[in-house]
């Protein structure tokens, strides 16, 4: 099974065309509009989105102005080149319509490879990537959804007969049912993990990171008190935003795009605090968080938050700004509540390097725990995710996980114990 890649492509929009592009994206978001890119035909794409980053004149931090840009993001099964080739092939003229608003998009007569090359040249590396479960492909998610539905329907017909029955025998009967279905028989084999090359690279990264830190430990320990003093000095000087939500028109613009299905996209852009100290702190924190999401939180739970399918942080404009993008289950209100309850410290560590964040102490304390201020901070930085696609918008991340566990419980030739069979049946 392939691993997953967070692809980000960002391209400057031709002067004066941002408005027209936004209108086009709004039309594309309407499934009945006939202009949507048929992402569903791109079989290795979990999620995708397109949005416009408005131009910033004068620069948010006093730096040079930043032109408006188009951002394409997708969470895809490796390899990326296959995704890009499919995007260009399947997207066709509709993709041209979108990217023609950007500087230098190949002409209609150019080859698809020229388009792929153009996109690749504009790729931006993500600083932090969170994948709910590494190695689970779109095909696996779809297959396991069909498997569960078939088993549930099978059990509906048997539930009266099997009331009070023996769980081991019921498990065996379900197994026989699956074995008898040519379209489901694959489920008796366990899902394979990511490929060897990925695992080798991952292991090297897993070991290499701590090794480097260990080597630098004497230096880091010596610097720690200095850093701590500087941190507190910076934190005391911070100027948090007033906890005021965006105006009603903006709130409604955002709300119009929310809660159509059980999942939602979240996209936000913030400005990094100026100065070398914050720059280095943010860099170090993002490295550490990325290490944690890559090697620790890669099995369905981000410090107990189980509602995020994919998430990423991407620094842009020479790290002057930071984009946060995720696909999650439920409403934004519940998403933010979960953040506050479970990962306030982690969000503080990253976001407190951004201008206007609720005041933190020692990098991880306070901050998001100020509920009103935190929710206003996020809402004020949120962008309308004009085009958003999910390959399985009827499944929560917990559903996907449960489907995988149902399949995993079918594998193996040996009969489960009574306890195992009961636990497996409780998933249905």
């Amino acid at each position, binding site marked *: 099974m392939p691993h997953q890649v967070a692809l980000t492509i960002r391209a400057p929009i031709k002067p004066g065309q941002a408005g027209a592009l936004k209108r086009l994206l709004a039309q594309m978001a309407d499934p009945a509009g006939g202009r949507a890119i048929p992402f569903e035909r791109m079989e290795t794409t979990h999620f995708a989105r397109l949005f416009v980053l408005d131009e910033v004149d004068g620069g948010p931090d006093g730096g040079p102005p930043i032109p408006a840009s188009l951002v394409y993001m997708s969470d895809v099964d490796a390899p990326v080149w296959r995704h890009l080739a499919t995007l260009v092939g399947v997207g066709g003229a509709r993709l041209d319509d979108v990217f023609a608003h950007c500087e230098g998009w190949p002409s209609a007569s150019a080859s698809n490879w020229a388009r792929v090359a153009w996109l690749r040249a504009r790729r931006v590396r993500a600083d932090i990537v969170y994948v709910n479960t590494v190695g689970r492909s779109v095909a696996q998610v779809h297959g396991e959804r069909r498997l569960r539905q078939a088993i549930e329907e099978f*059990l509906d017909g048997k539930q009266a007969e099997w009331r*009070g029955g023996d769980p081991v025998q019921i498990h065996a009967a379900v197994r026989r049912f699956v074995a008898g279905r040519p379209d489901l028989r694959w489920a008796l084999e366990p899902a394979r993990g990511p490929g060897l090359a990925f695992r080798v690279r991952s292991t090297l990264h897993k070991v290499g990171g701590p090794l480097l830190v260990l080597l630098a430990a004497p230096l880091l320990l010596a610097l720690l008190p200095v850093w701590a003093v500087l941190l507190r000095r910076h934190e005391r000087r911070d100027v948090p935003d007033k906890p005021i939500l965006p105006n009603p028109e903006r709130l*409604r613009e955002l709300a119009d795009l929310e*809660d159509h299905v059980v999942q939602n996209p979240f996209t936000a852009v913030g400005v990094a605090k100026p100065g070398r100290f914050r720059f280095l702190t943010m860099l170090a924190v993002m490295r550490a968080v990325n290490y944690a999401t890559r090697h620790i939180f890669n099995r369905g739970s981000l410090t107990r938050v189980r509602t995020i399918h994919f998430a990423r942080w991407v620094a842009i404009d020479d790290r002057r700004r930071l984009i946060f993008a995720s696909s999650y289950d439920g409403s934004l209100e519940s998403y933010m509540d979960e953040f506050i309850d479970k990962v306030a410290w982690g969000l503080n560590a990253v976001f407190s390097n951004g201008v206007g964040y609720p005041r933190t102490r020692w990098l991880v304390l306070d901050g998001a725990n*100020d509920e*009103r201020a935190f929710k206003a901070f996020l809402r004020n930085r949120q962008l309308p995710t004009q085009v958003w696609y999910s390959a399985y918008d009827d499944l*929560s991340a*917990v559903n996907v996980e449960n489907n995988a566990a149902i399949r995993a419980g079918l594998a193996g030739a040996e009969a489960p114990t009574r306890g195992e069979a009961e636990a497996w*049946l409780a998933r249905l």
Partner: protein
Amino acid sequence: MAATLELDDIQGLVARGYGGLRAATFVLLRIGDPAAARAWLGALAGEVATGEREERSEAVHVALTHPGLVHLGLPEGSVAGFPDEFTGGMTTDHRRRILGDVGESAPERWHWGGPANPVDAVLLLYAEDHAELERLADRHAGPAALQAAGLAEVQRLATSPLDGTEPFGFRDGISQPLIAELGPTDRPGPPLHTVRAGEFVLGYQNQYGQVAESPTVVAAQDPGRVLPRSGDPERADLGRNGSYLVLRQLAQNVEGFRRFVDQASRVDGQADPDAGARLAAKIVGRWPNGAPLTRAPDHPADDLADANDFGYADGDAAGHGCPLGAHIRRTNPRDALDPESGPEQSLRSSNRHRLLRRGRAYGDPSDPGERGIHFICLNANIARQFEFVQHTWLNNPKFAGLYEETDPLVATRQGDTGRTFTVQARPLRQRVTGLPAFVTVKGGAYFFLPGRRALRFLAELPGAPDQNPSRREP
């Protein structure tokens, strides 16, 4: 403990549900003559029941919608801090989606509160019996009284005499949050149900230890200093001691519910009343007498009829007593909201979404007409409390790890979602399919229930000609 509550300013509905005042009616109003309506409100400010403890033989309360405040003459631009839920109202496209107000329950079909029949205010009248209520209603909302007040009646919501049972036949209102500040100071209430006043009243600390955002007006608007000043000396605190009141008319298809339960529990076409009663209890999470299935899984034990001191995490985590998707488990998941985080964290999270329920049933069992509940709840943050419960718990097909079911009792249904209900059991769940909607929304609006000083302030507004809806400033 934080500041003591200013009970002489808070409308008493916050502190009590008037169990002793069995008769009630809710009069929905539209303001025709703002000047007359202001005078009416000023007189009413002296009559509304406050939160101070006293024996009452009647109670009057008044609450206003956002258009109502504007019609009264609250000038645009001078107000800030009303949340978008309140200013935008219950019927925006987004709120229809999260509240489930679509199809049969769409606001276009409402008796009141929809686009065709908006309301400005609600007058809530409570008395000991029907005759007393008639007298009270005549005095406050009779034709002469309304005309003098410059008001038009949109709808009068009658209620059945309070007997603690809702139309489906289940005892109702057993579980309510307790306001910490109202209890004895030396003896804190049970942690399961005790929450801070700021969850229901503006101006006090809430479960996050914060004071919720309160609407304010520019201080110049209040030269007589009727309102307290907020932290900012330039602003007067309009919200202090107020609450947001959610009112929804929920029609219940009692016959349809009985029929469905009977059909779904038949064995080989034979009716099985015991199985039917059991299925109904599984849908609700309590037996008709109130006994919770978590504590009384097999039969409606009388000694557990009032039981409310239970959680789900210890002993019923799998839903074998009270199903994971049962109505009372969705409305308050208690200590089982997030098994991975454990019961204490779950309870802490659940208690950030509590509602003070003040609804009353309507309709007569002996009469074929519409029956249901005039659902009322009070909260300080509509988005985090009422809307969250409605969307993230009741209407959420993914609640508690489930797939495609919504609240089996009260959720509206759309397409295929919500048509199944799973009764967890060992070794095998029983899945009930083909659920119709048993509840239809017939009306609704978000109101602000001001403190007494705020009512006086509103009564003294100069009455600007400006009739545009006020917007808060960023």
